[in-house]
Each structure stands twice: as C-alpha cells, then as structure tokens.
C-alpha cells in the first residue's frame, strides 16, 4: 500500500515531465532532450529563491517563470532556426542545449550536490500506514495539473489550435493558425510543467546537482514512449505506470538491483508489441 502511494507519487512527477516531451513531439515533431535540464534549472531556481526568502510559494512562482522563459528562449534561439532542417540536426541541437544548461549551472553553482528543503510537514497516519504530507501534496497537485491541462487542450481555442497543428501543420497554417506562435506556446507550457515537476521532485528528493535532470528526463521520455509519444493521456498513463513499477521493484529485495533494467526492459517489450506505444495512433505510412 505504501509502495503504491510512493509509486503513484513518483509516477505523477514522471507524468508531468513526460507531458512536456510528448506535447513538444506532438506539435513540433522533435525530441527535446534538453527537457530534463529544464527541470534542473527549475530546481536551482527553487534553491536560490529559498536561500533568499524561506517560503515555498515565491520559490514555486520564480521557478515557473524562469523555466517558462527559458523554454521560450531555447525554442527561439536554438530550434526555430532549424525548422525544416533534418530531424537529426534538431535532435543534436537539443542534446547540445542540454549540455549547455548543465555546464552553465555547474559554473554557477559548482559540481557538488546541495541540500534543499521545501517545507517539511511530517506524515499522516491513515489506516495504519504513514504517508508523508508532501507525497499527498505531490499526488494531489499532479492530478489537478493534468486535469487542468486536458481541459485547456480540449476546451480552449488555443488548445484546439494546438491539436490542429499536431494533426496537420500545413493545413492548420492554411486555416489561419499561427504555427510558430503555437509551437512557442507548447514550449512554454511544457517548461512550466517541468518547473512544477522540479518542485515536486525536490519535495521527494531534497537535493540539487547539475545532473539532476538527466535520470528523471530519461525515465519520463521512456514513459512518454511507453504511453505513445505525441499522446497526452498516453504520457500520463506511461508516467504513472513507470513510477509504480519502479517503486514496486525497489521494495522487493531480489528485484531491487535490477529496477532500472526492468523499467527499460518494459520499454523494449512494449515497442516490440506495440511500436506506437500503449495509446499511440497507428498511422499508415503513405508511400
């Protein structure tokens, strides 16, 4: 039971990050490998704000603003000039951005791990098991954010425009949708989600380092692919599934050393059975 809650909590964080991957892929048709490092920047933003004023709310706001701006800037500076270039060039640029962000934060904050504390609210006894308040908070807020995002995409004009661009960019552009604007919006939303993820991540794991984003980034990417990259519900399902698997494995002593192998093994398995992921659309290739 405890393991399940821990898994849901971690899964929620993965899902938030996976949403960033999957939205950018769905709309801009590129894999933004710098996404994990946006989380790291968010975490350092929280770290710095907390060291100035010791309250979580301003830290969260600052992190969201910085990440959103960073997402828009990287899109403008690094990815927009490459629109129409080969996917490989864009991919390599994304990896370059990732290293750039890591090295810059290493220059500013040093290579070491720094402790961070975002409020400590102890734990709650429910039906004989103790759950930490921050886990409950993470879980609750992840659900709220995901519901909000789904509503935004399905009910608002901008959301519909995003769906249209992901369906067919050329047609959307002919219908008068500002494609560049929509892509920028996607990056902004994805990065804001990454900022939220970084706050939840720090609630669970209270330490920052320049390589903090690498592992959750890869895990979330795996989650996005498992769920079907480009599919928003897929990213949520994939993230939560991966989180639960990770926690269940690490609670069984025999499996614990192989946790990461099992997670990525699952990815391989799913790609073999369903190459488009659990909720991905199977689209016939036009020849």
């Amino acid at each position, binding site marked *: 039971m405890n393991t399940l809650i821990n898994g849901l909590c971690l899964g929620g964080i993965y899902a938030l990050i996976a949403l960033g991957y999957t939205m950018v892929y769905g709309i801009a048709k590129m894999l933004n490998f710098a996404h994990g490092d946006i989380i790291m920047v968010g975490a350092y933003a929280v770290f710095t704000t907390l060291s100035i004023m010791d309250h979580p709310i301003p830290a969260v706001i600052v992190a969201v603003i910085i990440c959103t701006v960073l997402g828009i800037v990287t899109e403008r500076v690094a990815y927009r000039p490459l629109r129409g270039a080969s996917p490989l060039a864009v991919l390599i640029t994304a990896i370059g951005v990732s290293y750039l962000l890591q090295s810059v934060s290493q220059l500013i904050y040093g290579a070491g*791990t720094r402790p961070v504390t975002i409020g400590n609210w102890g734990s709650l006894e429910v039906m004989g098991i103790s759950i930490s308040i921050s886990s409950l908070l993470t879980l609750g807020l992840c659900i709220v954010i995901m519901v909000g995002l789904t509503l935004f995409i399905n009910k608002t004009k901008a959301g519909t425009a995003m769906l249209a661009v992901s369906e067919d960019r050329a047609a959307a552009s002919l219908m008068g949708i500002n494609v560049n604007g929509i892509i920028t919006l996607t990056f902004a939303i994805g990065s804001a989600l990454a900022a939220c993820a970084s706050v939840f991540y720090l609630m669970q794991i209270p330490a920052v380092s320049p390589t903090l984003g690498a592992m959750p980034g890869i895990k979330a990417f795996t989650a996005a692919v498992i769920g079907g990259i480009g599919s928003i519900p897929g990213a949520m399902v994939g993230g939560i599934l991966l989180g639960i698997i990770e926690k269940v494995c*690490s609670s069984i002593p025999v499996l614990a050393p192989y*946790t990461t192998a099992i997670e990525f093994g699952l990815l391989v398995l799913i790609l073999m059975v369903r190459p488009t992921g659990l909720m991905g659309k199977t689209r016939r290739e036009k020849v």
Partner: protein
Amino acid sequence: MKKTMKLVCFALAMVLCLLCATACGDTNYTANNETYVIGATGPLTGDTSVYGVAVQRGASLAIDEINAAGGLNGVLFSFEMVDDMAAADKAATGYTSLFEKGMQASIGSVTSGSCASFAAEAANDGVLFMTPSASAENVIGVSENAFRVCFGDAQQGTIAANTLVEDYSKIGVIYDTSDPYSAGLYEAFEAQMTELGKVKDTDYFVYTFTKETNKDFSTQVSELKAKECDVLFLPFYYTEAALVCKKAAQLDFNVPVFGCDGLDGIKDQLDDTVTAVISYITPFDVTSADVKDFVDAFQKKYGEAPNQFAADGYDAVMIIYEAMKAANVNDVTISAADLADLLRPVLTGGTFKYDGLTGDGMTWTTAGSCEKAPKVVVVERD
C-alpha cells in the same frame, strides 16, 4: 640475399633486446637523489578532488614538519603527487613517472580503484607504499609491500555489526549494490552478524539501491519503518545518507542513524528537519583535543579545517618517516626495492607502534592492514 637479410634482422633483434635489458635492469633512478622522495597519486581535479587535495595537503604538512626538524640523519624529504583524477589508468602512468623521478617510498593512491592499479605496478618494482585512504580489500593483497593507514571495508563492516548488536535489536540496513565500498561493507557486516548468531529478516532487514536509483529512498525507508527497526545502518556516502535521513524525518521515523567513514561530511547536507542522532565510525575527530596541534597548523597553512583524508595523508608520511628512522636508513640514494626490504620487517615486526592522528598504537599485519581501536563520533548539531 635472402639469407643476409635474415641475419641482419636477427642481429638487429639481438641489439634491441640488449638495449632493452640495460634500460630495464641497470638504470638506477634514485642514484641522483638529494632528498628522500615520497610519491603518491590522487584526484587533484574532478569530482573526487576533495579527497586528493586533502591528502596532498596533509602529506605536505608532514613533510614540512619532518624537514623543519632536520629530516633523517641530516637528509631532507620531498613529496611528489601526480593527479590521477581517480582513474585507474592514470594512476598506473602516474606511478611510472614517479618511479622514474626517483621515488623511494610511496603513500600509494587516494581512491581504491586507482590504488589497485598503482599497487599492481608497485609490486613489479618492489616499491613499498602506505595508502592513506584506499579501503578496498584488493588494494593491499597484491604485494607484501602494500600497507594502509585507514580501516579496510571489511574491518568497518565487522566493527559496525559488533557495535550495533550491543544496543539494538532490529537493525535496518540500506546499501548500494553498485558500489564496491558499500557492498564490501555490507558483506562484512552480514558475515559478522551470522557469526554473532543473528538472522536476516528477524534481527536485521536489508534493502538496496543502485547508482541509478540513489535519489529516492521512500520505499526503503517506509519498509524499514513498517518493520519497526530501532536503528538505521547506512554503509555508503554522505550525500545519499543525507537523503535517507531527510526521507526518514518526513515519515516521522527518527531512529538513530549509524554509518561508516563515508558519512564524514554529512553535517553540511542536513537541515533542521532531521532530528535523529547520527553517528559514524571514523578514525579522525577534528574536535578532539589530541589532534589540536595538527588542526591549528593545517588551518594556518590552508585556511580551512582538515578532514579525515588530510589526517590520513599526514599519518601515512609520518609512518614511513618513523619506520625509516627505526630502520636507521642512512643512504639518500637507496633504491626503492632496497628501502622496502628495510621497512617491511619494521612495520610488521610487532614492536613498531605508531601513535597518530587517526589512532593510537597502530600496528600492521603481514597482509598490510592496520590494526587500531575504532572510534565512533556523533554528529554535533546546533
């Protein structure tokens, strides 16, 4: 024509062999030494440079003190340290360059992986070394001239088991299966627990992690809490241990925490949410009155307080010096192998004892491990 070519080739091969033999056998690198040269390799740059730099500073301080007191029979000492970035291959090449510079005795390498390859090279030339801090078992096994100052991993695991069973009945253990230091400590701990008649999953409970999963400890901590453990044994490094402590605090699981020398430095990683009593096995307590002179001298020279590695480095050099004094070494150009043959019987003879910063009455076994009484330090918090 063909025959003459063959002959010429053969002759050339012979000449090459001869050249090689003279190069390998006859060159005496120590012939021009004007001081006794002690060499070492360690990470002076990179992620683990904090350890290498500390050893370098501690060792240099020891050399300064020896020379200020006039050296040994009027001959001064010098210390050479090569940066190996904690990489085994760089330690091996570093060893060769030190040997060719006339190194006569060594304090080996700082980290275990590097020191294993340093030891293999040193064994070929018969060079004696006294590593300050390489704690893995294989470091001193390769040669009769390999010694260390710190406890080996197995020694600490055994000490931990003996200490913990005295006060606690349900020990919660977490360890890193992907790290030789942590796994080595745990194996020794488990062996000693079996020796003491304790049963896994009754008297102690074990959960693991790997370097890919070394951030989120919620599962391990909540499982150990559910088992009602009355102490946590964390045989790994302070960064991860601090995360475990904070997770335990989040879950209101404030039992005492016990660790090994890897926990040195944990204080800076904690915040006021952590209320558990944290203690660890360490040979060096910076607040102790016994080491005040060293701490003050170190502080004066480098502007910061020494850590355990600095103390180990200082002791390593001093032990070599004291052993040379006991053996009455009197030849500044003595070769490394000859010096080793003089020092080894002193170190393992049974009468040689060294009282240092990292322990009183240190003696060495013929296997090279150091015997000294363990100290347990409680992390003081304000």
